[in-house]
């Protein structure tokens, strides 16, 4: 797993040094910087791709609670303080945890574990959403970038695929197998409904007698893919659900 990039911000030099030391001896953490004031930390925290900040609350000028408000949302905060009067406030600014000084390494580690599980969740979510929303294909000696949302459906032809686009009934032919292309397309958007056809679910407007209709094109839903396709349709169909309840 990727290390979590951390910042330590504490105006008390010894408290700062201890937390910094804890960070350095924890393999899952990477120290991006250690600062004696919020002002010194601003630059790194705002553009340093920081995952986790250990933030003291009681600091002169811009204190930890005020500073927390400008920390990017995808960066989590563990407050460190010698006084508990700020605890409730601390959670209001969406802190991951709150550590009361003096902080033992055990307490530190249990907070870090919370940060690690949060980070794993975040990475998983990003992995789903960072798939590119376009396709690069070679056609007629040109490289074309096709936004996925512009694709109506795809037809497999021997060694080629023919990509039908939403605009002007245009299509693009490219040398590629259906199976290869399928791997580049998000499952949530494209579905195979026939050995030779894959449709963009977002563009389905009419289904008629086991055929998906795109203008003049009638795409057959073959036996093999029917169950999966019908399942998708019933999950998204308000009308069918209502019909069911009416018949009761």
């Amino acid at each position, binding site marked *: 797993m990727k290390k979590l990039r951390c910042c330590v911000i504490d*105006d*008390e*030099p*010894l*408290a700062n*040094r*201890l937390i910094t*030391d804890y960070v350095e001896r924890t393999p899952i953490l990477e120290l991006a910087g250690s600062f*004696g*004031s919020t002002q010194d930390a601003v630059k790194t925290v705002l553009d340093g791709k920081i995952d986790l900040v250990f933030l003291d609350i*009681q600091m*002169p*000028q811009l204190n930890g609670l005020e500073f927390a408000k400008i920390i990017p949302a995808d960066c989590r905060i563990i407050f460190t303080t*010698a*006084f508990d009067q700020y605890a409730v406030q601390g959670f209001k600014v969406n802190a991951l945890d709150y550590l009361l*000084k*003096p902080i033992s390494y055990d307490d530190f580690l249990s907070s870090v574990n919370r940060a690690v599980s949060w980070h794993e969740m975040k990475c998983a979510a990003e992995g789903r959403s960072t798939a590119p929303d376009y396709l690069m294909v070679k056609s007629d000696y040109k490289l074309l970038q096709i936004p996925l949302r512009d694709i109506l459906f795809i037809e497999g032809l021997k060694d080629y695929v023919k990509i039908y686009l939403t605009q002007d009934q245009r299509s693009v032919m490219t040398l590629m197998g259906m199976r290869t292309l399928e791997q580049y397309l998000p499952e949530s958007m494209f579905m195979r409904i026939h050995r030779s056809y894959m449709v963009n679910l977002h563009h389905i407007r009419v289904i008629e007698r086991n055929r998906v209709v795109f203008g003049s094109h009638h795409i057959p839903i073959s036996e093999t893919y029917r169950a999966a396709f019908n399942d998708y349709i019933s999950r998204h169909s308000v009308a069918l659900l209502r019909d069911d309840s009416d018949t009761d």
Partner: protein
Amino acid sequence: MLSLWVNSTVIYVMDNLERKYRGEIQNDPKAELDRLKTQLNPHFIFNTLTSIYALIDFDRDQARRAVRQLSHLLRYVVYDIPEATLERDLQFTRNYISLMKLRLRPGDVLDVHIGCGDCGDLPIAPMLFVTIIENAFKHGRFTDSSNPISISITARDGHVNCHTVNPYTPDQSSDAPHGVGLFNLRRRLQLLYGDSAILTTEGDGRLFVCDLNINLNQK
């Protein structure tokens, strides 16, 4: 827990002291509250404990020294205050400064001169200097100025003078940057010494100067 205990003990001790110095008891609850605020700041104790906790890893000898100093300091606050003399109070002040030094950053410079002169045995209301010194640290610690925090306490012929100079950044959000602590100190001085104590403060936007003169020969 510790802070509550120290505070309540201190309130009790302070009551005795006010009697001793004024010959009367203050019953005004507001005055009680203000007196409470003049005491050792619990933040100081917790920050010091946190620093010592870290020192155990980094410098055991210094950690031991700091525990001794904190123990002397608490002993003075808890037990010895009724018998406060200038010498004892200055010893307390030295311990306080030593512990505050743990919280200085590498660039901070501190300049301290403390002596009781020929007045060591004179009784004095305890912990009058701490507020002033706490302020000097609080505001002097985070300015980029090359000026040191300077603390001087001298005494002669029954007159004691505490003089601090620290760099500071004027706080635009407040017109009294060294507000509450010094305000309470002023009230306490008025109560204890009346016209025999003079506290002056002056900030020019760059350096803050605090000067306290007390005539201990009063009465």
